[in-house]
């Protein structure tokens, strides 16, 4: 079980930090100032990127859950938990950055728009997932319940989105075709698009890097738990 940190992971760490520094620089100095909204629009680059990572975590947890139930391999439970924990952090950053942007643009910190509602429900389901796991001692049962809940949650979230969407939305849809009348909508200039794409890439790397670290941590925690159970017997 004793394994040292893989070289590739160290390389990835350094690479990710470098990417993040460049992305931060691009957001503040490379991307032009948006004409109407001003500097607060710069939050958009990291806002969308963190939302993307949060969603990756959510999908990852559901997929890991399905594979776990089929294969019954503890490895996939560790993967699922790692995905949820990373997702929680990033969806939270996503919600906070969104609120910071919404205050001057929508004139409110919060509104019950479909995307905002969906992000919040996602966060609540993640939290419930962790609380469910906390309450169960037996590792196998904990893994099974976690997998089942991740699957149920991932099916419910799109339905929440669609049901909230039947109301009118004011959230701008910058990527893809959106309603141009949405408050705070804008067209991206080439420099903005480059910055945006770079942020997305950066946060994808951050996700991979953290995911790898968290899975390693999970494996070690698993090992410790097994040792503990052995000494208890």
């Amino acid at each position: 079980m004793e394994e040292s940190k893989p070289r590739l992971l160290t390389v990835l760490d350094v690479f990710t930090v470098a990417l993040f520094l460049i992305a931060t620089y691009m957001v503040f100095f490379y991307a032009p100032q948006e004409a109407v909204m001003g500097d607060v629009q710069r939050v958009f680059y990291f806002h969308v990127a963190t939302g993307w990572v949060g969603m990756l975590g959510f999908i990852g947890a559901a997929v890991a859950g399905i594979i776990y139930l089929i294969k019954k391999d503890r490895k996939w439970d560790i993967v699922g938990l790692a995905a949820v924990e990373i997702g929680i952090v990033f969806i939270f950053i996503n919600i906070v950055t969104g609120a910071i942007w919404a205050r001057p643009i929508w004139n409110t910190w919060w509104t019950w728009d479909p995307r905002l509602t969906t992000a919040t429900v996602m966060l609540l389901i993640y939290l419930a997932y962790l609380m469910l796991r906390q309450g169960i001692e037996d590792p196998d049962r904990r893994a099974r319940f976690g997998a089942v809940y991740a699957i149920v949650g991932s099916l419910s979230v799109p339905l929440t989105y669609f049901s909230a969407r039947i109301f009118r939305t004011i959230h701008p849809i910058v990527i893809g075709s959106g309603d141009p009348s949405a408050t705070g909508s804008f067209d991206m200039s080439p420099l903005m698009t480059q910055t945006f794409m770079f942020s997305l890439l950066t946060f994808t790397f951050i996700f991979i890097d953290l995911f790898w670290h968290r899975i390693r941590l999970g494996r070690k925690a698993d090992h410790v738990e097994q040792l503990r159970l052995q000494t208890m017997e």
Partner: protein
Amino acid sequence: MTVERESSYLASEKNAGKVASFLRAMGAVVWKDLSAELRSRELISAMLVFALLVIMIFNFALDLDPATRRDPTITAGVLWVIFVFAGTLGLNRSMAVEKDRGCMDGLLLAPVDRSSIYFGKALGNLIFMLMVEIIVLPIYSVLYNVNLLNLGLLVVILLGSIGYVAVGTLLAAMAVQARTRDILLPILLFPVVLPVILAAVKASTGFLDGSEMELIRPWLNLLIVYDIIFSAVAFMVFDYVVEE
């Protein structure tokens, strides 16, 4: 040709036998819950009293004047909050009694398809919930002076309760096996069941308001889709929840 027909006949015969035994097992679970309830009347009475208390709390918390009381949005909202809270109470209890004296182990030892246990428990929970709802509706009508005798509203309540109980029974089966079982069920259930609540409240408001069917249909469709998806998922994963 005859052999082929015979074998397909035998297969369908076998399937019919399977379905019949599935329904029998399911019916037995439902019957067990109903007759236990008929003797103790613990669950229904607790849910009912709780529902009445929620009605009372809403009256004072919202300080409703006679005009707002009849507002369909308020009525639908308050009704669904009552159903959701009372339902949680019932779901928790119905699974806790199985866990407490090892009844669940007895059920699992029975040589039947485990999903029949799930559907039996879910159907029992649905019956309890509908009974509470049927009693609450006239009481609410009298107390708030609104007419709730509306066929559309009853359909919405049925569809909403099916979705609620389909997920609720599955999650309650997990929650009672956890250390924190008293507090866990609402935390697990509410975020997942949100689409049902949203659609049910909207459709109920629509029917009470006398809106056109065009406006209500999307919500009804959503309820039906939810009911189907989650009954199917619960059917598939219930085995993993009760497995030892």
